[in-house]
């Protein structure tokens, strides 16, 4: 079985030769340096034999000036193509090198026309997906599965621009500003999803963090009013082009309350299923015939603080309780922070490949 066959088989809830795996959304700066040092390999996914590779849109040709949307910014701040300012931590600790804060460019805007005129990036432009198509072909030639990244699909992208507290107040107030902003982002995300589907992605990775570890960030009612219909539109856009594309949805935290809604709008795969606040085995029992699970290995518990034996035990437990009949993709639940021991990463990969001892 090639990696691509393994991923598609498992995520369609048929039995693969072993569960597919990857190393999640990446690595903290210090962890990546440590892995490279220990393995001599540039890409940990190549070294460990992960089953997927991720793709993103090619670079933009725009060079929008967002300075009018920001006050003075600290030294070292970078502004991305959405206009979001990324402020580096003041800490000089090497383990903190990947940490940054945000300055939100739309936090001081008031009128609907300002929401309508804010310069959004051209992530819907066809030229940015020409390199994606080539990358996906190359990934497929290697027998790997291609995962097209549509993370921070609508809600997170909107609050990155507006500020989370401000956007949640907008929702509560029923603000036309929020409607305009969310609709504009949704339209671009729909185009992006179509481009990914056309380029041959096996999996499209949608995601908006709407969970805390104690339950939803907002009420299920508010999520259904503001976010569910827009998520549905972005999924429909991909499915109109490629009905069989696998739809992956990421939210940190406990999103149990909206799992039936996610299935209803077409989500095939739930990620990351944080075991610190969701029970993967119980979810398999409740939804395993309609939903696959990607993640489940805790980066807040076992991976940083457990022993290699603990990691192997957690992997084996997942395979036994969630892996039957497919539907399980094993991955750390988030990026590998610096305190995850290298031995635990090795133990994770070996256990997935069936070496438990």
């Amino acid at each position, binding site marked *: 079985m090639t990696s691509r066959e393994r991923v598609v088989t498992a995520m369609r809830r048929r039995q693969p030769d072993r569960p597919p795996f990857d190393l999640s959304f990446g690595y*903290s700066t210090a962890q990546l340096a440590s892995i490279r040092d220990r393995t001599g390999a540039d890409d940990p996914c190549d070294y460990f034999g992960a089953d997927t590779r991720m793709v993103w849109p090619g670079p933009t040709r725009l060079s929008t000036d967002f300075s009018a949307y920001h006050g003075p910014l600290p030294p070292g701040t970078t502004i991305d193509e959405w206009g979001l300012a990324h*402020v580096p*931590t*003041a*800490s000089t*600790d090497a*383990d*903190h090198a990947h*940490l*940054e*804060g*945000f300055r939100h460019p739309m936090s001081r805007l008031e009128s609907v026309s300002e929401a309508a005129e804010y310069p959004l990036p051209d992530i819907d432009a066809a030229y940015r997906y020409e390199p994606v198509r080539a990358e996906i072909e190359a990934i497929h030639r290697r027998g790997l599965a291609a995962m097209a990244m549509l993370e921070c699909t609508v809600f997170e992208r909107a609050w990155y621009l507006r500020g*989370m*507290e401000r956007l*949640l*107040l907008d*929702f*509560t107030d029923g603000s036309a500003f929020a409607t305009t902003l969310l609709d504009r982002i949704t339209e671009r995300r729909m185009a992006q999803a179509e481009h990914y589907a056309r380029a041959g992605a096996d999996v499209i990775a949608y995601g908006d963090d709407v969970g*805390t*570890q*104690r*339950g*939803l*960030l*907002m*009420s299920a009612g*508010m999520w259904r009013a503001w976010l569910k219909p827009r998520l549905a539109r972005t999924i429909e856009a991909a499915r109109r082009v490629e009905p069989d594309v696998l739809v992956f949805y990421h939210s940190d935290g406990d999103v149990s309350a909206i799992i039936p809604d996610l299935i209803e709008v077409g989500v095939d795969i739930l990620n990351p299923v944080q075991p610190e606040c969701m029970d993967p085995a119980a979810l398999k029992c409740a939804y395993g015939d309609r939903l696959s699970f990607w993640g489940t290995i805790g*980066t*807040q518990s076992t991976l*940083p*603080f457990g022993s290699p034996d603990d990691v192997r035990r957690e992997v084996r437990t997942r395979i036994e309780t969630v892996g039957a009949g497919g539907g399980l993709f094993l991955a750390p639940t988030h990026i590998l*922070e*610096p*305190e995850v021991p290298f031995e635990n990463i090795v133990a994770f990969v070996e256990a997935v490949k069936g070496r438990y001892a």
Partner: protein
Amino acid sequence: MTAESVSPLIAALRQAVIDGQAKDAAALTEQALAAGVVPRSLVDEALIPAMDEAGRLFEAGEFFVPELLVAARALKASQALVTPLLAGSAAATAGRIAIGTVKGDMHDIGKNLVLALLQGGGFDVVDLGADVPPERFVAAITDDGAQMLGLSALLTTTMLQMKATMEALDRAGVRGSVKVIVGGAPVTQRFADEIGADGYADNAAAAVVLARRLLGRPA
């Protein structure tokens, strides 16, 4: 004006804050003050119970982050009218607490919710912000007169800065003069015990209860 005739105003103000109705909260505050309600009792009988109830509803899973945010907004609308009238009253607050997200960590939503509920609970809260180095926490005690510190972290990486902050308090010789409470997604009671914190709470409402207990205030 009798207690009976102002109590509906107090009850209505309390409900307006819980419901996050900022304009109503401001109007009812003005009416209550005009009716002769003592500012202190307005705080004690309407505002503090309102935010306690919002916190209780949050803890019970009936309120979510947006409901807490609008309640805090309504609270501020009332406080803007009441707080100036309380100035100079030494017993006006339940204690001074400095709160921040530890060094390296930029996450502030959880910290801000705790801050809102502590303020609502009658504490004088100094917001140290995010990415706060240990020496700033020390200065909050020596310069700002904090009786309690609240430390927040969202990541296993930065959680370790809580230990570094506790050590800095020891080195500065101020550990004995302050209570320290900790919280955030990866933090546990066990971790709090290991680093020698005085208390841990797993949600914003529980943090207020904890702060009152540690500072010897009535629950």
